[in-house]
């Protein structure tokens, strides 16, 4: 048996214990040391799958959750999931280690921090390992929620709250769109399992919902992966503590969209729409991000835009790679499949260099008190280790040897050139744009990488502009970025090991057509001879260096771009407009009178029930099968009538309350007569408690008196009350003459053998329909807390006045 699904639960289980650990050892031992073991354990466990998966196999394990609804907790690990799983836990472990030194155990609310973080870790693992699309969706939204909580971690700051809200609104919107798309997929294929969906591609491609489902799923992926024009949430998300930015907003969560696109490439890939949307949005994002990054004054803002840009790069590679499916399996298709391999490679590389860069920026922030490029400078002699790491990370990002970014950047160029060489989907006409955009974006990438290194570390050190005296960080803070920087170099020298164990299996997962061949025949090497890619890179370096040198001269053009046309401005306008509209609309009907609300509720009820009764011709009354009414029952009914009429005509509230109580007790009498002791007991007790509740409320109610208001209003009230009475009576009378569904009583016939209970009512409550009961008590407690909160808030408000 595989313990894979347990791995998803490990972070959640740790999360439960974190607050207690924090309480016990909070001030003595940093809580992070405890948390550290969660990602580490899962990482080590996942390593075990490498040999198996490098052979092209995938491991599948299933845990029944709600089998009757077809929702099972099915986990599936293949090449793609393995890369993500290792990134999540590997970078996760390093980030936790880093955060131990970054987050002060005296000043910060560490238990919140680590609970959110573990929540995220578990959700992200669940997202990539889950085989069920509904489970995937749940984890998807859970990552959005934990990201929201982490961005708003310093919730005292306005920027944090706004950034959190923005990311929440955008990613949840995308998540909901994705849910709709996933449901369409399951409608087409009649399954919730991703593996089964992937095996029924023919059904989907010929279906009329193909395009809507594709667009909805892409909306989910693009919002999560900060693609243009949804990218605006990512720079604002930089308000989060730096370990979080390094973890969620560069290495893992923002790559969930990439994961989704990769996962569904074999379903939608091969169509022109998918190819065009994914690759063009990717390229637009690439160039948009890189151009904006150059203009950033905040180091984290720069890294945020660079992340957007790099995500666009990976996305465009996946888009181009999807054309491989169009060609089937052959030479042409493997040319395009190369792009998918490059995407996976850059995915890993990006996590290594961007993770280390974020950590270094965090160190700079921590040790100097600022991240503003204009105030920094000359740190090279003060922080030599940080400088080295920054050089490794930045040069890798810029695509220079001997760092892993060089290899994947070259592969990126190769893929973009392929598009011209073997055109597809009408690429003949504008295919040339692909490599040109890629090249221009790379120049800007080069420029911002240089800014990152030279503006911070070279130049003149100006201690008077810094809040703290700058010095090198403690060793514990340096180890995690050092490990990542080390990987940056190691991967450059041994790319084919990575390729064999990770990239090829992932390729097979994305493009199952290559499974038989065990991937594509590619040897990644740093030197290909003097080919176009190399010339492009040289061009990038020369032109980039030139432009960096004259940055001051031309960077002024950024200020010419009108603020009105920025995406953020659109977003703010939209938000303000929506708030205005909804507050206007809400004020129309939220009058503050309970009477009005009851009018709405009852009118709606009459309309809904009356229409359905009328349309379904549901009313039928037939008394022939009814048992004769004896004197005793007749007497009880008369008593009930009197009680009911008393409620309506009583002059004082206390009489009305007592009459309602009497009515309830009489109903329970009927339960006794018809031998339903459980119901009778419940009704009696409920009646008692509500009578007490009514009596309590009684104190707060005004005197019952004749109210003087306009006549037409009362006519409406009369009509509504008559309507409700008539409808309910009609339904009650026709209930007995309908058998819309088969009787379910046989289901409970052998309750004694199944549940060991002689009381069938209780067996239904706690066993057969246990889930219903569980949710009921949950709702009940939430309602109770709601009442409590409302009243306490009201009291607090009054005291303030």
């Amino acid at each position, binding site marked *: 048996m595989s313990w894979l699904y347990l791995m998803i639960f490990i972070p959640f289980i740790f999360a439960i214990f974190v607050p207690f650990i924090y309480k016990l050892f909070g001030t003595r031992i940093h809580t992070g040391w405890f948390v550290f073991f969660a990602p580490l354990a899962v990482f080590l466990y996942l390593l075990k799958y490498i040999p198996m998966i490098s052979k092209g196999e995938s491991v599948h394990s299933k845990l029944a959750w709600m089998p009757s609804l077809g929702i099972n907790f099915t986990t599936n690990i293949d090449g793609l999931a393995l890369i993500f799983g290792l990134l999540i836990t590997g970078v996760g472990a390093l980030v936790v280690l880093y955060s131990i030194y970054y987050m002060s155990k005296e000043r910060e609310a560490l238990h919140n921090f680590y609970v959110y973080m573990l929540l995220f870790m578990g959700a992200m693992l669940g997202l990539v390992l889950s085989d069920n699309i509904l489970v995937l969706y749940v984890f998807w939204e859970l990552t959005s929620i934990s990201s929201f909580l982490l961005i708003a971690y310093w919730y005292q700051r306005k920027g944090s709250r706004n950034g959190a809200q923005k990311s929440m609104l955008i990613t949840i919107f995308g998540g909901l769109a994705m849910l709709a798309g996933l449901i369409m997929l399951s409608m087409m294929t009649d399954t919730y399992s991703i593996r089964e969906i992937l095996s029924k591609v023919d059904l989907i491609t010929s279906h009329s919902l193909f395009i809507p489902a594709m667009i909805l799923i892409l909306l989910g992926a693009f919002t999560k992966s900060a693609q243009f024009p949804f990218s605006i949430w990512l720079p604002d998300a930089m308000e989060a503590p730096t370990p979080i930015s390094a973890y969620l907003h560069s290495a893992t969560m923002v790559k969930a969209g990439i994961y989704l696109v990769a996962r569904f490439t074999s379903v939608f890939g091969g169509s022109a729409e998918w190819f065009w949307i994914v690759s063009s949005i990717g390229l637009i994002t690439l160039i948009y991000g890189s151009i904006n990054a150059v203009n950033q004054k905040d180091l984290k803002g720069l890294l945020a835009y660079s992340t957007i840009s790099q995500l666009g790069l990976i996305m465009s590679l996946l888009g181009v790679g999807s054309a491989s499916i169009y060609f089937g399996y052959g030479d042409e298709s493997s040319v395009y499949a190369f792009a998918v391999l490059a995407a996976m490679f850059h995915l890993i590389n990006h996590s290594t260099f961007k993770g280390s860069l974020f950590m270094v920026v965090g160190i700079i922030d921590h040790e100097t008190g600022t991240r503003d490029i204009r105030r920094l400078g000359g740190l090279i002699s003060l922080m030599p280790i940080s400088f080295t790491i920054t050089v490794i990370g930045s040069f890798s990002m810029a695509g220079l040897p001997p760092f892993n970014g060089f290899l994947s950047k070259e592969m990126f160029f190769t893929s973009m050139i392929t598009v011209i060489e073997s055109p597809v989907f009408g690429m003949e006409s504008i295919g040339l744009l692909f490599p040109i955009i890629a090249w221009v974006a790379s120049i800007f990438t080069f420029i911002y990488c240089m800014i990152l290194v030279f503006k911070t570390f070279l130049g003149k050190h100006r201690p008077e502009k810094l809040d703290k005296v700058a010095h090198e960080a403690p060793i514990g803070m340096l180890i995690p970025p050092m490990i990542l920087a080390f990987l940056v170099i190691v991967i450059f020298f041994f790319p084919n090991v990575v390729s064999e164990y990770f990239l090829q299996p992932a390729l097979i997962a994305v493009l199952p057509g290559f499974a038989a061949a065990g991937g594509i025949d590619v040897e990644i090497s740093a030197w290909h001879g003097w080919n176009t890619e190399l010339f492009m890179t040289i061009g990038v370096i020369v032109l980039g260096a030139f432009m960096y040198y004259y940055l001051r001269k031309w960077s002024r053009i950024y200020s010419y771009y009108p603020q009105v046309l920025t995406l953020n401005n659109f977003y703010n306008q939209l938000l303000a407009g929506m708030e205005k509209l909804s507050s206007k609309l809400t004020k129309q009907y939220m009058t503050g009178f309970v009477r009005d609300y009851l009018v709405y509720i009852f009118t709606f009820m009459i309309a809904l029930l009356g229409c359905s009764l009328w349309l379904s011709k549901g009313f039928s009354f037939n008394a022939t099968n009814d048992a004769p009414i004896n004197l005793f029952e007749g007497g009880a009914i008369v008593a009930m009538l009197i009680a009911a009429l008393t409620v309506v005509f009583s002059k004082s509230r206390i009489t009305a309350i007592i009459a309602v109580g009497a009515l309830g007790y009489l109903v329970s009498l009927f339960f006794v007569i018809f031998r339903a002791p459980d119901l009778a007991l*419940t009704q009696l007790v409920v009646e008692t408690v509500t009578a*007490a*509740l009514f009596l*309590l409320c009684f104190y707060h109610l005004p005197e019952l008196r004749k109210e003087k208001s306009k006549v037409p209003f009362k006519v409406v009230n009369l009509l509504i009350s008559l309507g409700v009475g008539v409808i309910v009576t009609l339904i009650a009378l026709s209930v007995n003459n309908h058998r819309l569904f088969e009787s379910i009583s046989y289901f409970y016939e052998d309750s004694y053998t199944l549940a060991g209970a002689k009381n069938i009512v209780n067996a239904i409550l706690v066993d057969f329909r246990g889930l219903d009961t569980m949710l009921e008590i949950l709702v009940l407690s939430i309602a109770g807390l709601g009442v409590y909160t409302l009243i306490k808030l009201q009291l607090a408000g009054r005291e303030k006045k």
Partner: protein
Amino acid sequence: MKPNDVILHSVTKVAVVIILTFSIYLFYGGHHNPGGGFIGGLSVASGLVLLYLAFDIETVRNNIPVDFKIVAAVGVLIAVLTGVSSLFIGKPFLNQAFGYFDLPIFGKTELATAVLFDVGVALAVIGTAVTIILSISEDG
């Protein structure tokens, strides 16, 4: 002026014992006879409400220093955890089990995990009902 409620106090003291005892009976009888967590919980709540009505809130709170919001939360937690526990033995969520055991005093007795679930239900009901009534009565 202090109202004279000697009779109410005296009756309540006796009645509450009877109500609570009966509630426990209802709760445990639920498996085979009318009763169960919901009814048991509600009748405990009604007994408590009687106490609150007869004596004032402060007096009862001093004698029963329990936060009923927490009681409700613990109830829900117990119910969920009994559901989750079946996952660990490879059964679906909320699967209940029962068995017959020979206990020293009671003889052959049936023990069922459904009772644990019912404990959760009962606590949630008690906690919620009392919370609502207490908060409304404190208002104003």
